């Protein structure tokens, strides 16, 4: 089909000369537009075109404003105006006429009018308000086409504030007899959900109805909404899994009408949407995943045709299989599919293959080994996009052994890259890898130098900041720190002696700081020499004033020797009269400190360690000053928003705060602002896949270990495990090496094979072994890593240890050489497989034992055990485990009993308050963690119960949350827990930033018995905003004055509780009971409600019964609080 289209498009290249338009018989004649277009094509210069268009626009302008122009002519004029705008000329005079055309024209003219409006105006254009009435009228029209047009334009462009006006009518359309209207209405609601989520929350039930619509088109449309909803909260929609699976089954089985086929593939768009939804639902959830195995298998099997669209489905299928709880058979099939992609000669498929590998390789690094030769070819591909994707893949498989090669490749790419966005992204990755895996100081500093010079001034500021922090905080050994700093100093001195004018400003600033702090470490270096080099920077024309002030600060630190002082004073002299105030300030400092050596040594002791300064961010030391000023009659301070509020109040008197029925919302900072899909964000999240949330967590850190925990167990590797590894189960890590040696032996015995195969390109082979070298022994590296607490700040500290331990290993036994021998072997296999692809699967099975035994040592051994004994699932053998609180549904009964047996352990001071259900967080062989939260009057306390069923243990818990402030009530971070006892920890929680639900993430490191190596567990705990809500008792007058002072607000219509006599009172009582909101007063059809977030953050609610619904308006000084609270109100009123 595509060929036909392409041919016909090429077949008619020179029709311009013909007078008649193609297809004109069918279309209305737009002769004037035709003339215009033809006129333009005949022109030769841009200048002529401009003249012609200006002339054209003038004539259009004249005609549109003439009263004699009919609507029909207007339609034609609009088309011409749109054409002129498309060429880049402004025709703003016609905007208002476009709206008029949409308002007054007949169906045809309306259509052009709407089109022109949607092309001319953007969302915030003021003229758009004029469109609202027209849309409203058309939505209620009896003419189907008008309704369709109105729905289309609503989807394309509609003022956000006006959504409530048309929402009820659009909702109504969900019941329209025509499926096309229903479908468009669903899509319109989807759009509303995206730009203003809390507006459509009350119609979730109707979405369900749309999902069950008898027309597959409407059902498909509703999936867009569901994908969105499930992305936000998968838990709430688990019950729909079976329905989605059934739908997919029917689609795959070809049960849909032929109309939905695309190139004889049944409804591919629908299939892919469903696969995406399923992968979200099945993620980290075995029970749900089990429901979908069959249909995924079917999808993989059915999609065998050789067409792009089937590849699209396959790709999505593979991603789904690797996202949900693993099943070995499926993984095997999916892995094969990836092979088809990667090895395909079609470049688009190769690209997707690389992407799939990148996605999968974190769970199964072996797959990268299988395709190493292809990966290496792609690394040298002529297409930049392919190259970049390959680097992305390599980034994911980087480890301590291949880091130098991979970073070198990335830097090579950077040197040629012209795209800023790519540069920023890759520079960040290089810095991350360098910090994590640097083999030695020299390499680290040199790599960072490259990063700074290539990244220039575009790179994220975190990179230089992080680097300086790392240098100053240092890591394990003093000696090591000193060496690193010394190396940095010498490297920078030589850079400055070269051509500093070529270095980016950011890099110069880093250099200045390091020289200022650490140049004393280099004993043979006179400060005056450094000072001389720095002065050169000051004289450079290219230096920015920011860099200059860094230079001056560095000089200030350096001027402690005689020779330096005179030079410094000269510089200070020059800059103390600078126009730049910062520079002048720095120059003054320099001058004073260089004069007074005693003061200098006190302020900046040479070689002194940096002690972090205590900063009093509440500025409490100014309290006295403030109270003095107040008593002297000064006006109290008001925050900016309050001042603005008062200002607007005094200006606009007509804006009554109680004018609720007005549809125009004055809300300025509702939560929807954040979620509207405005603008293309420029965040640098180039890496990874959007669906892959867990890996995105904190920056783009490679988190191999965490992921592997979920996967290693029943990964299909586990099934084919050679018996020898079972032996490892009894003997933990120290005894790993003999078996590894055994592997090495078996490998060595096979090493002759590669030499026997002369076709193998020597160079690539070498590259392969250096690139994929670490992979095979990677998991052993991970295992060592695990025993250390993996916290960002310590990353580099850990590194020193790690790299030294790996080097020890290298010396101790020939693993490394044998590992590369394995690689050579593998790559040969692959080459053979290339020439005779039929054999490839056989080769793959042959490969397994080796790569596996080396790669997945203890992890797999553990998997076997879990396979054999399902009861021991939750008792990890390895030292780290990741268990989520909501991950263990089958244990409900246990929980109940736990609740009752743990309650007595609640601290006495909390026993008077109500506590939530005690839920298990995580558990290991000997430790059980459960938690609940207790709502006291002025705080929420998280209580963690630690049940120790074995011996005495040392343990340490850390609980963190981004939106909550967590204070540990207990004394020391490390605590001993006696054997067979329950210990209780308390954390008091306060809200930093309101959210609908808060999530706490915790990490427990423990050693049993005390003194043994540490192990870790992670857990998470969720609690709703409502736990923090307390009733706020205020009088109506107080309420009135508070109302005016608050600036964050939101409005919405809620459902009233259906009761004959007093629905308002009933509703407010329900809110009082469920959310503990305080009802201040009820006046007729209006009600005043108040609450506060803990003690100090009030939120007021004004309710009014209007047209059978409850119009509420929430206000608070805290941003987002009204929106979040509104959500809970909605929930509270929905549930029976």
């Amino acid at each position, binding site marked *: 089909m595509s060929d036909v289209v392409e041919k*016909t498009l*090429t077949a008619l290249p020179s029709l311009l000369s013909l007078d008649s338009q193609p297809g004109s018989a069918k279309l209305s004649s737009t002769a004037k537009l035709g003339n215009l277009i033809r006129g333009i094509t005949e022109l030769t210069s841009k200048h002529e075109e401009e003249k012609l268009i200006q002339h054209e626009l003038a004539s259009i302008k004249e005609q549109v404003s003439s009263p004699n122009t009919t609507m029909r002519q207007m339609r034609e004029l609009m088309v011409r105006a749109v054409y002129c705008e498309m060429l880049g000329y402004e025709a703003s005079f016609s905007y208002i006429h476009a709206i008029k055309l949409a308002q007054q024209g007949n169906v045809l003219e309306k259509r052009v009018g709407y089109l022109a409006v949607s092309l001319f105006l953007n969302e915030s254009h003021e003229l758009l308000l004029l469109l609202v009435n027209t849309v409203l009228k058309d939505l209620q029209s009896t003419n189907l086409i008008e309704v369709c047009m109105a729905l289309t334009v609503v989807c394309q462009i509609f003022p956000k504030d006006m959504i409530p006006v048309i929402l009820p009518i659009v909702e109504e359309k969900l019941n329209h007899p025509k499926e096309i209207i229903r479908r468009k209405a669903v899509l319109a609601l989807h759009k509303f959900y995206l730009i203003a989520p809390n507006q459509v929350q009350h119609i979730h039930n109707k979405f369900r109805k749309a999902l069950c619509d008898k027309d597959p088109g409407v059902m498909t449309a509703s999936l867009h909404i569901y994908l969105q909803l499930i992305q936000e909260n998968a838990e709430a929609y688990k019950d729909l899994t079976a329905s989605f699976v059934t739908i997919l089954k029917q689609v795959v089985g070809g049960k849909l009408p032929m109309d939905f086929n695309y190139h004889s593939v049944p409804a591919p768009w629908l299939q892919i949407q469903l696969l995406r939804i399923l992968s979200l639902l099945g993620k980290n959830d075995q029970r749900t995943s089990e429901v979908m195995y069959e249909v995924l298998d079917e999808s993989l099997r059915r999609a065998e045709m050789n067409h792009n669209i089937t590849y699209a489905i396959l790709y999505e299928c593979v991603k789904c299989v690797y996202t949900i709880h693993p099943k070995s058979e499926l993984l095997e099939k999916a892995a094969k599919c990836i092979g088809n992609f990667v090895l395909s000669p079609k470049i688009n498929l190769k690209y997707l293959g690389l992407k799939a590998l990148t996605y999968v390789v974190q769970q199964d690094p072996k797959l990268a080994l299988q395709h190493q030769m292809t990966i290496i070819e792609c690394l040298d591909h*002529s297409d930049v996009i392919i190259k970049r994707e390959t680097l992305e893949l390599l980034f994911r498989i980087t480890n301590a052994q291949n880091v130098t090669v991979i970073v070198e490749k990335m830097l090579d790419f950077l040197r040629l890259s012209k795209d800023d966005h790519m540069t920023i992204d890759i520079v960040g990755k290089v810095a991350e890898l360098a910090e994590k895996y640097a083999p030695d100081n020299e390499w680290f500093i040199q790599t960072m130098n490259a990063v700074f010079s290539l990244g220039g001034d575009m790179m994220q500021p975190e990179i230089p900041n992080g680097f300086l922090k790392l240098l100053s905080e240092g890591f394990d050994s003093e000696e090591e720190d000193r060496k690193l700093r010394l190396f940095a100093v010498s490297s920078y001195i030589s850079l400055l002696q070269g051509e500093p004018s070529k270095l980016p400003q950011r890099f110069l600033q880093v250099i200045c700081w390091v020289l200022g702090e650490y140049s004393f470490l280099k004993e043979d270096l006179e400060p005056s020499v450094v000072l001389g080099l720095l002065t050169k920077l000051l004289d450079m024309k290219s230096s920015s004033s920011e860099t200059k002030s860094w230079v001056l600060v560095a000089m200030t630190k350096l001027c402690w020797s005689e020779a330096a002082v005179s030079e410094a004073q000269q510089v200070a002299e020059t800059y103390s009269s600078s126009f730049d105030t910062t520079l002048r300030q720095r120059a003054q400092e320099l001058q004073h400190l260089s004069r007074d050596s005693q003061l200098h040594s006190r302020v900046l002791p040479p070689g002194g360690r940096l002690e972090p300064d205590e900063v009093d961010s509440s500025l409490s030391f100014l309290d006295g000053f403030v109270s003095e000023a107040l008593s002297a009659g000064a006006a109290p301070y008001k925050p900016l928003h309050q001042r603005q509020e008062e200002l607007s109040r005094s200006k606009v008197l007509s804006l009554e705060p109680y004018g609720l029925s007005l549809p125009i919302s004055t809300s300025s900072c509702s939560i929807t602002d954040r979620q509207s899909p405005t603008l293309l964000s420029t965040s640098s999240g180039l890496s990874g896949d959007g669906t892959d949330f867990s890996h995105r967590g904190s920056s783009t850190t490679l988190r191999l270990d965490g992921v592997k925990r979920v996967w290693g167990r029943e990964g299909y590797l586990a099934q084919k495990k050679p018996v020898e590894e079972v032996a490892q189960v009894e003997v933990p890590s120290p005894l790993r090496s003999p078996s590894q040696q055994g592997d090495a032996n078996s490998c060595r015995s096979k090493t002759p094979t590669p030499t026997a195969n002369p076709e193998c390109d020597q160079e690539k082979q070498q590259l392969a072994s250096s690139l994929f070298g670490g992979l095979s022994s990677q998991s052993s590296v991970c295992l060592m890593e695990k025993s250390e607490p993996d916290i960002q700040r310590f990353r580099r500290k850990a590194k020193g240890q790690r790299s030294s331990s790996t080097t020890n290993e290298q010396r101790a036994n020939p693993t490394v050489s044998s590992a590369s021998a394995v690689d050579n072997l593998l790559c040969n296999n692959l080459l053979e497989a290339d020439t005779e692809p039929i054999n490839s699967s056989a080769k793959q099975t042959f490969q397994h034992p080796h790569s596996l035994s080396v790669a997945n040592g203890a992890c797999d051994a553990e998997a076997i055990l879990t396979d054999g004994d399902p009861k021991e699932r939750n008792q990890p053998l390895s030292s780290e485990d990741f268990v989520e609180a909501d991950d263990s549904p089958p244990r409900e009964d246990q929980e109940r009993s736990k609740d009752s047996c743990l309650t007595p352990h609640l601290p006495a001071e909390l026993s008077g308050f109500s506590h939530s259900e005690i839920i298990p967080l995580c558990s290991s062989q000997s430790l059980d963690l459960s938690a609940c939260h207790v709502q006291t009057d002025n705080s929420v306390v998280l209580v963690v119960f630690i049940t120790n069923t074995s011996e005495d243990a040392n343990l340490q818990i850390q609980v963190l949350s981004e939106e909550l402030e967590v204070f540990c009530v207990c004394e020391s971070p490390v605590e001993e827990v006696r054997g067979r006892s329950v210990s209780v920890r308390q954390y008091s929680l306060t809200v930093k930033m309101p959210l609908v639900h808060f999530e706490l993430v915790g990490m427990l490191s423990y050693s049993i018995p005390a003194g043994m190596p540490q192990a870790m567990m992670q857990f998470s705990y969720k609690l709703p905003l409502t736990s923090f809500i307390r009733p706020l008792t205020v009088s109506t007058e107080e309420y009135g004055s508070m109302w005016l002072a608050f600036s964050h607000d939101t409005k919405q219509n809620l459902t009233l509780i259906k009761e004959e006599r007093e629905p308002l009172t009933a509703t407010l009582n329900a809110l009082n009971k469920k959310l503990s909101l305080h009802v201040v007063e009820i006046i007729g059809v209006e009600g005043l409600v108040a609450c506060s977030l803990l003690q100090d953050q009030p939120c007021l609610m004004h309710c009014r019964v209007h047209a059978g619904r409850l119009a509420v308006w929430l206000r608070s000084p805290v941003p987002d609080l009204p929106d979040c609270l509104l959500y809970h109100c909605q929930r509270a009123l929905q549930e029976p």
Partner: protein
Amino acid sequence: MMRFLLLFSRQGKLRLQKWFTPITEREKKKIIRDMTTLVLARQPRSCNFLQWKDLKIIYKRYASLYFCLAVENQENELLALEVIHRYVELLDKYFGNVCELDIIFNFEKAYFILDEFLMGGEIQETSKQMVNRSIEASDMLQETLEEYMSKPAF
């Protein structure tokens, strides 16, 4: 979700633009400029996907016309390629052997077809028959109305 669709000629002349999310005029102009330079600079045998800021650009050339579709990062590239192809098929069905000139001279029709096919950045209707039926329904109305209007009695 799709973000925008641009059609431009080999000379970089814009033929059609559809924005699914609100973007300011200035940004539109910048994006159009970026897209044309990026896409036109691509070598013939390279892949049809590009990374641009945090978006994926999927482009395909049909004769002298480039179709360039921007989607969000987690979208499926191959599927986006088929979105473009289906749109070309729809145009082809409507115009009968579509060529660039059809789209230049009747660009408003091309927009109407697009509006029936995609809505708010999502696929609305994939069936060729259905899209054409709804377009023809409005076109029919056009003819009958025009006849009606041209009657002397009115």
